[in-house]
């Protein structure tokens, strides 16, 4: 909202006031002014929640108090459009009071003092970290040919605010997470993709690694791959969490407001694909995305849902049927199936799915849900209903359907992906709604 209000004020010189819930207001008048827009947009705070509330409640909000100033809401709106600008609101050019540059070196009298400092600064996941001594960081930097002072990215903060960071900073966080130098190229590739997507909802990320580096550094794509049973998977995933917090600057309640957040954020579901188990015709994820089989690629997925098959595949109910059933609870915007190689054996060898794409096509044609359930998902309704109202198909037609009419939410089969991972001790799988980025070449960071 700050961006839109700023555009109206700056381009057309029309006074504007934004009305929002407390989290948007808090960010809009705080970090967003300082680091993103530079414009102290005037806000009024609306009580939350307002979605789904009857008109009587909304009327009460309007006749009630602005949660920012505590004054009557509508008087606050009138004042925001009419009260003369303050000195701060008239500022132009370089911002005063720029923060002092962070020192490169920290000195403390004890390990405990440093661990406490790191916790108090929010530089940890509140598990103990390995202290990044100069020797350890220097050893870590041997994992890449890039120079320590090379800038990896500048627009690294939330909404692309400038938080320039170097290879050395990433190596420092890699040490803190417990990484080995050979993990550093993957961690640098992950760092090059900040900022990661945040939300007030329970959004999370998933890391999938493909290519030769998986086996070279000992990542687990087999037995127990999704669990806390492999050093590389665990530590690389943790490093991404530290990158999110320290480099991106994510602070709950200041730059982010995830109401419940998500336990996947501890290690970002870091896995490698079990490429060796793929039958003929089933391509690794990175090859499907256009990379060479010999490329090492890390793909960051973003999503919300992570539905466990619970048990193994039953003889009387083919795996694709239960996948279809479970996927009907997903939004339809994207799906990524994580499946054990034993499930692939059944799908490929018994059910006749010769490629991952064939499975995606079948699910696209067979997953169904009611129109009211589809539009009842707020992510779908926020992102796609407006486009439907503007005539974009199939959403325009789906908006006209009766509530109980059935639709096929995964209209685009390409939005259904499969990643094969697991140890063949149970024919199990997860249905997720995770959607990938375009992948990042790890070799470029070696």
């Amino acid at each position, binding site marked *: 909202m700050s961006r839109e209000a700023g555009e109206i004020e700056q381009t057309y010189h029309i006074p504007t006031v934004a009305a929002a*819930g407390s989290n948007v207001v808090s960010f809009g008048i705080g970090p967003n002014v300082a680091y993103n827009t530079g414009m102290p947009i005037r806000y009024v705070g609306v009580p939350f929640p307002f979605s789904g509330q009857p008109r009587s409640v909304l009327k009460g909000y309007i006749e009630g108090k602005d949660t920012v100033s505590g004054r009557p809401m509508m008087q606050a709106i009138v004042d925001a459009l009419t009260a003369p600008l303050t000195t701060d609101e008239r500022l132009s050019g370089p911002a005063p009071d720029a923060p002092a540059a962070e020192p490169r070196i920290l000195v403390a009298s004890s390990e405990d003092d440093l661990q406490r400092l790191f916790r108090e600064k929010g530089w940890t996941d509140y598990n103990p970290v390995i202290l990044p001594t100069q020797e350890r960081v220097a050893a870590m930097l041997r994992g890449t040919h890039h120079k320590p002072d090379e800038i990896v990215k500048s627009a690294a903060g939330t909404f692309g605010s400038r938080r320039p960071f170097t290879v050395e900073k990433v190596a420092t966080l890699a040490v803190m997470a417990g990484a080995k130098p050979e993990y550093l190229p993957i961690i640098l590739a992950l760092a090059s993709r900040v900022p990661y997507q945040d939300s007030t909802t329970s959004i999370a990320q998933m890391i999938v690694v493909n290519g030769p580096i998986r086996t070279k550094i000992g990542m687990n794509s087999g037995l127990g791959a999704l669990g806390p049973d492999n050093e590389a998977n665990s530590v690389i995933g943790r490093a991404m969490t530290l990158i999110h917090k320290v480099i991106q600057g994510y602070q709950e309640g200041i730059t982010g407001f995830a109401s419940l957040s998500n336990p996947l954020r501890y290690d970002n579901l870091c896995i490698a694909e079990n490429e060796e188990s793929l039958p003929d015709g089933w391509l690794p994820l990175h090859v499907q995305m256009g990379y060479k089989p010999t490329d090492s690629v890390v793909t960051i997925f973003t999503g919300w849902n992570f539905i466990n098959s619970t048990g193994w595949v039953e003889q009387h109910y083919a795996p694709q049927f239960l996948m279809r059933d479970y996927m009907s609870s997903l939004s339809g915007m994207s799906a990524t199936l994580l499946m054990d190689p034993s499930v692939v054996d059944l799908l490929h060898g018994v059910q006749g799915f010769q490629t991952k794409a064939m499975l995606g096509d079948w699910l696209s044609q067979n997953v169904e849900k009611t129109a009211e359930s589809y539009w009842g998902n707020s992510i779908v309704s926020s992102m796609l209903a407006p486009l439907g109202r503007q005539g974009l198909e199939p959403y325009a037609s789906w908006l006209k359907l009766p509530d109980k009419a059935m639709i096929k939410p995964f209209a685009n089969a390409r939005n259904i992906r499969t990643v094969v991972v697991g140890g063949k001790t149970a024919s199990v799988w997860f249905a997720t709604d995770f959607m990938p980025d375009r992948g990042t070449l790890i070799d470029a960071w070696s």
Partner: protein
Amino acid sequence: MDRRKMLALLGASPALVAGMPTHAETLPEVAPHPATPVLGGPITVLNPAVTPKLAERVPLAPRLNSLDGKTIYLVDTDWGGMGQNDGILQEMQAWFAQHMPGVKTIIKIKKGNFVTDDPGLWKEIAESKGNGVVLGVAG
């Protein structure tokens, strides 16, 4: 349900579990982990924090002397997507009609969705001599 049936249901072999030790085993002596911090004396570490850069400040537009006789656009940013904000903006419009009848209010819905820009609407508001804008509502 007995323990054996429960384990079988969960896919675990009762025989396998039965063979597991129930007491802590003595750990073999191992060399210190290479990441074990050195104790004693000041400790020097690299600072992981980055220095954020402040945005250049941009002034707000001058404010109106009064809203009397002015046109205020109430713009629905379509957060929620299914007309979630209409109610609040309509209540705002009703309040202006009752308490400040000299103010003309016009409700507009932004195109795209709540994360996209609608520069055409901002231009339309300017060309229509809109005097002020209330953007709402996001949560």
